[in-house]
């Protein structure tokens, strides 16, 4: 069942920039440029891309905050911008950069307002709140005014607020931004529980690829508002033309190694790093090195997902 459907969705912003002292120039920014994808119910999808790629803009269109400039967009079968308030009962949103909680009031009061605004039946409200309080360890924080919470505590509070009404979809825009390692782990565990346990569909935007590796079966990479990859995490390596690295320790410092199928990327005394395509076998290269150089030790390093993504971002032509 497709819960989210986008067909050729675009969103442009006209910006007026000052040129010189008086003249102003109008310029069009295509924040999202012909995006199409579908997300099935129950999926957990990582949505990544460099700064300014159009991730937040997409999420805002999916919640109905922004009206698309072109294309067709459906969430749970309806057009979000047109039926925003009706759809709002079915979706949960967490913006890492701002809070939906009431700054001056205890956490509990924000939840109480959510109960009324979302018209959550009492029994369900209590069950959901109890579950969130337990999983996110919010118990001791419930009576603290939000402005006194730390960033990590507040983020946990925001997560709970987004889930009290049992949304079908949860959009997360950089939920782990600024959190320490322990808080990140806790948030991830919670999201996994929400996705696999409760079956909530999750669309997750982040710059921390560990979030994606640990949570998402599927990744979508966008840049300049266009999809550059959509598929499994492992498939990224092939698309990203990722490289493995052969680290060799020679008997002593030497000129950069020259063997077919690999190139030296770094030299440090007797140690040299050779890069080669991830899909090639390491054996012939190792054999060639061993034949031509005084080899003492070697190891093969798998490509890190960060490098793959970075390579992918760098490859997309600018403009």
């Amino acid at each position, binding site marked *: 069942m497709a819960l989210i459907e986008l067909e050729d969705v675009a969103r442009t*912003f006209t910006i007026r920039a000052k040129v010189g002292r008086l003249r102003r120039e109008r310029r069009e920014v295509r924040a999202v440029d012909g995006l199409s994808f579908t997300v099935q119910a129950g999926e957990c999808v990582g949505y990544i891309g460099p700064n300014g790629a159009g991730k937040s803009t997409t999420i805002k269109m999916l919640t109905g905050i922004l009206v698309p400039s072109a294309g067709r967009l459906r969430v749970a079968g309806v057009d979000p*911008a047109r039926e925003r308030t*009706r759809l709002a009962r079915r979706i949960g949103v967490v913006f890492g950069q*701002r809070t939906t909680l009431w700054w001056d*009031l205890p956490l509990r009061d924000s939840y109480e*307002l959510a109960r009324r605004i979302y018209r959550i039946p009492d029994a369900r409200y209590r069950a959901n709140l109890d579950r969130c309080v337990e999983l996110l360890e919010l118990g001791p924080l419930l009576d603290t005014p939000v402005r006194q919470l730390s960033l990590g505590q507040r983020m946990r509070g925001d997560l709970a607020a987004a889930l009290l009404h049992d949304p079908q979809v949860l959009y997360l825009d950089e939920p782990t931004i600024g959190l320490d390692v322990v808080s990140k782990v806790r948030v991830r565990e919670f999201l996994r529980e929400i996705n696999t346990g409760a079956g909530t569909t999750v669309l997750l935007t982040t710059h921390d690829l560990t979030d994606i590796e640990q949570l998402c079966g599927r990744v979508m990479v966008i840049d300049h508002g266009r999809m550059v990859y959509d598929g499994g995490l492992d498939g990224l390596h092939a698309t990203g033309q990722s490289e493995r690295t052969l680290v060799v320790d020679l008997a002593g410092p030497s000129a950069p190694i020259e063997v077919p199928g690999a190139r030296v990327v770094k030299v440090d005394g007797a140690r040299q790093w050779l890069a080669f395509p991830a899909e090639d076998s390491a054996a012939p290269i190792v054999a060639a090195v061993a034949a031509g150089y005084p080899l003492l030790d070697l190891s093969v390093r798998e490509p890190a997902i960060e490098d793959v993504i970075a390579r992918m971002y760098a490859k997309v032509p600018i403009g």
Partner: protein
Amino acid sequence: MAEYLGERESGVERLRWAVRSWQLTAAMWTRAAMAYRASFALMLVANVLITSLDFVVVVLMFQHTDRLGGWTLPELGLLYGTSAFALGTADLLVGSVDSLGERIRAGTLDVMLIRPAPALSQVCAERFSLRRLGRPAQATAVLAWSVSAVRVDWTWDRVLLLAALLVSGTVIFSALFIGGATLQFWWGEAKELQNSFTYGGATLLHYPPTVFAKELVAGVTFGLPLAFVNWLPLLHILGKPDPLGLPAAFQFASPLAAAGSVLVAGVAWRAGLRAYRGAGN
């Protein structure tokens, strides 16, 4: 799939929900304000005083004359009381909408838009504070005095017209607040511009139409419908000639003007939301 969202609600239900979500949000703000209650009393007093100043000036003027533009002090009291009541009540109910630009810049409008309640209700209830009761309270006092002091035979049609104008006037000013605020979707700093229509308009209505140039009076009759707030109906109540010589029907048309203003403000608000660009990040 769509039916899972629940039935689409009727217009009446949607309106009731809009009012209800205003109440819920306003209640939250009242609570939040308790966190800073220190100077509440002083602020309320200051509020009553500042809104009284305008009337004090009128009273001082009448120390030197017994008529202004042909109207007596109790008659000006009626003008002042009705205008200030309508503006004050509108300000209490929807006045916060004028800081829409700040809401947009701070990104709080995004947060409102993800809730299942009309964004307009939430913006209007934002920073709701009971200290805004000062103006309507003070206006009611002046109004009560003027009603008893003015030489008018309070027949039922006049009483009815007075009640209707208070309601219509409040609605017209509310529509002005909202319609003016929507400009901020396009021009973030339009707040003060809007103040000149609302607060400036209310000041205009403190004085009789005979004081002003005919073009100005025509402008606030056919342009911004300010004349319908109190001038036109009070002409009938006080039995005064219309400086523009308009048909008598205009003096009863305030509810129509109010309905028209609401329509225009509503359309403007919707257009504004469609043009909304988000808070950046």
